[in-house]
């Protein structure tokens, strides 16, 4: 069977000219002309500051931008670093730009970057999002150094965030992946990450790249693959995660479909691994575990509550197919409470998610529909979260997150039981 050709001729020619490298930073882009120049500059300054002797390359992979993003990358000028020592790389700075497709695809973009890392035998790699407006030189260095110097294989970022941002990670992706896979990575779907050439080659060689479930959130698959294939993982604090330009963040439904879809797919693929995994391990961190800002944010809690209640009511028959009867009964009793008193506990949330995971595994109905049916329940959980933490400090929120993870870990046998039961 002839394998498909992934890399364009022009890209291969550019890689050929670059040759073997020590450090590679990839930037997947789509219509980021306004912000990508800053990202390019941050990357190349980090090369000058941290990797002056090493062979380095910046690889920009574009999904068919119409706003001239690729030209911006090629023409971006990097000032010498501001350290005052006039540091510059000893070697020719390499910058490679390619269009990997006519439409953006996170999976294809990541795969192209991994292919470049593999062909150039890069030792340390990072991926940086051009949509993050405040990427700094330190961010890049903090992602690369654990790989280059400390021989880690996967580096997930840690951010300073608002306490109400990243709730999908805090309430679902993190506790679930930590309890099931045994290693807790806070940002499972990061827009910045670091990895070794070894991990890149390993991931590139897996036969998953045509799976629709992971195309939109391939970083989740990569992180969980690193855990399940015994690669060394760590986390590195980067800085404040600023929101990107308006309209770039996915809405809640899309976010749930993409991320939970990818997570559940990984549960299926790595079932042998996580079933045997008993005790969770701590993931080494460089810098603080998390930082939260707690300034007030205007949120329409009432609406979230109503969407939760009406969602459970309207999707009742579907939810009954997915959830265990006692889980469903408990959820119904939660919806019967008033908005102030409505509480979707951590223990119930864990059981709900595990019911969904097991039902996804048994394909009790179309998998995408199943994941969409989770959205109202996720809203219920978020509503409870907002109510409980409206006056919480950062420490209190961290403690609560830890408790939630413990709840999930306690419920893991329940997941195993539901998973193994016949549909």
């Amino acid at each position, binding site marked *: *069977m*002839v*394998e*498909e*050709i*992934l*890399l364009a*001729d022009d890209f*291969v*020619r550019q*890689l*050929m000219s670059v*040759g*073997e490298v020590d450090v590679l930073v990839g930037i997947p882009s789509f219509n980021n002309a306004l912000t990508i120049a800053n990202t390019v500059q941050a990357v190349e300054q980090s090369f000058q500051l941290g990797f002056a002797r090493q062979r380095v390359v910046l690889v920009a992979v574009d999904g068919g931008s119409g706003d001239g993003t690729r030209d911006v990358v090629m023409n971006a000028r990097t000032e010498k670093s501001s350290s005052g020592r006039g540091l510059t790389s000893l070697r020719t700075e390499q910058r490679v730009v390619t269009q990997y497709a006519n439409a953006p695809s996170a999976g294809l973009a990541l795969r192209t970057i991994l*292919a470049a890392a593999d*062909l150039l*035998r890069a030792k340390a790699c990072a991926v940086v999002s051009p949509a993050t407006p405040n990427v700094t030189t330190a961010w890049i260095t903090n992602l690369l150094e654990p790989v280059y110097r400390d021989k880690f294989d996967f580096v997930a970022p840690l951010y300073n965030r608002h306490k109400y941002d990243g709730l999908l990670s805090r309430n679902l992706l993190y506790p679930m992946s930590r309890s099931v896979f045994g290693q807790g990575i806070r940002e499972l779907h990061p827009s910045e990450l670091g990895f070794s050439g070894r991990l890149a080659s390993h991931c590139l060689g897996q036969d998953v790249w045509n799976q629709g479930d992971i195309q939109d959130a391939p970083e989740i698959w990569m992180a969980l693959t690193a855990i399940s294939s015994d690669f060394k993982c760590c986390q590195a604090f980067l800085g404040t995660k600023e929101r990107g330009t308006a309209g770039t963040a996915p809405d809640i439904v899309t976010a749930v479909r993409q991320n939970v879809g990818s997570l559940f797919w990984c549960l299926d693929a790595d079932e042998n691994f996580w079933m045997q995994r008993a005790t969770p391990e701590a993931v080494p961190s460089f810098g603080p575990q998390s930082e939260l800002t707690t300034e007030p944010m205007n949120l329409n809690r009432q609406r979230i509550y109503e969407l939760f209640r009406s969602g459970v009511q309207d999707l009742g028959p579907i939810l009954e197919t997915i959830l265990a009867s006692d889980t469903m009964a408990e959820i119904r009793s939660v919806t019967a409470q008033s908005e102030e008193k409505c509480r979707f506990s951590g223990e119930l949330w864990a059981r709900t998610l595990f019911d969904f995971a097991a039902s996804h595994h048994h394909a009790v109905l179309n998998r995408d529909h199943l994941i969409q049916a989770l959205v109202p329940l996720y809203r219920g959980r978020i509503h409870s979260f907002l109510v409980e933490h409206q006056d919480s400090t950062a420490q209190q929120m961290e403690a609560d997150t830890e408790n939630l993870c413990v709840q999930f870990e306690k419920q893991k046998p329940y997941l195993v039981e539901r998973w193994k039961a016949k549909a």
Partner: protein
Amino acid sequence: MAVEAQPLWYKDAIIYQLHVRTFCDSNNDGIGDFTGLLQKLDYLQELGINTIWLLPFFPSPLRDDGYDIADYTSVHPNYGTLDEFRAFLTAAHERGIRIIIELVANHTSDQHPWFQEARSSTNNPKRDWYVWSDTDDKYKEVRIIFLDTELSNWAWDPVSKSYYWHRFFSHQPDLNWDNPAVFEAMWGVMQFWLDMGVDGFRLDAIPYLIEREGTNGENLPETHAILRELRRLLDKQYPGKMLLAEANQWPADVRAYFGDGDEFHMAFHFPLMPRMFMAVRLEDRKPIIEILEQTPQIPDSCQWCIFLRNHDELTLEMVTDVERDYMYDEYAKDKQMRINLGIRRRLAPMMENDRRRIELLTGMLMSMPGTPIIYYGDEIGMGDNVYLGDRNGVRTPMQWNGGWNAGFSGADPERLYSAVISNPVYGYAAINVESQRRTQHSLLAWMKQIIHVRDSTPIFSRGSIEFLRPSNHRVLAYVRCYENKQVLVVNNLSSTAQAVELDLQDYKGSIPIEMFGGNLFPRIGDASYLLTLAPYQFFWFRLRRI
């Protein structure tokens, strides 16, 4: 790291051939021994080989360098004891190195107790273990192998007053394989060594086991029947062990020794070897392609053994007269270099110590289909001494360092079994393991690298071969293919830089990745693929679709 059980291990083997006498002397008697060899196993492991082929080390009058065996189930006292051999075998296995030993099945020494008994009387039970005749008229069609020293295949035995048959030296009477007792005895010998743990046998001179009137006494059906029976017993009682055939024949004739996968596991491809030397001298790929295209398919479980040099002369039996004359003129101008129908020189001197040519030939050895054999000393470019008798010029002591006796032995130099090579070009001061270990770009370092690269993929050991025929005949190019993966090999046989355009349409879209440096070359497109090569340069490209 221990030897792993794997039925087709010999296909992936990289064999190092040595005589224990030549390698390292531990007791300072001037002769290498098994304890000394054990001390050098780390060196061999570091080199990257995984199999050692030991030349005969059995008790022997040593009139044919040990191929005249006087006791099959012991170790010559010069080389140590059976216990020392066992210790060496265990140590080798612990390092993942398998051991092949010789089984000289065709003949024994006239000092062997069996022959002593056989000749003592015509009624002796072992009389029939050898081939006797009252006249020397029988088997007239059979050729003489050692033309330089023997006038006949019959020798007169004054003790029993009759002639006995010998295909080699007259002091090496042929065993009578028509006698089942001989078969049983030799199987017993094999069992002795197999029970000890050796991994295989190189069967010496096997085409000549049986003779029949009116035939040339080579490759007879009865010989094959005997060999099949030996193989059957081996597979039944010792699975995973290997038999290697020494049959200096044309490939079509050697093919029969593989049977249907029920005779030998491996056999030497003798005719390829002189043609590699010829091709480099002619600067023309024709001899190599011709002989490989004449080489028949062999069963999947079987494998050719290929080599550049060995302990014998570079045999020119399987070439035409024109080719032989050419080889003599180019590689053995001095008649002292010639013996029997061959050339008794080592690789480096034949290549005039040209590092590029040594690498080119080694590159071809490592990339052609078959299991490669490295002759001891060739990894550092050792020289030879054509003024020593017989083929002893290529069997001089291993050169370990520039010190006393080249680090081979602590004995007085006069006591050594053979003088160390000491001229300024190939002498031990110039060519030795220790100097080359300290040099990053020495021949030894390069040998380790090429073995490592070859070992990094099963394509070389298991793959098919497809010759490309670019218009530039000085370039030998072929594609090795295994399980949908390909390696492109391009060799410049010429002493001058060459350009070559290759038709790689079948591999369009693939990216050639040079295997030593890992660098990308331009993707294969519609047009012919242009490469330029320095004198004697070669490339190995992994073809990757991505």
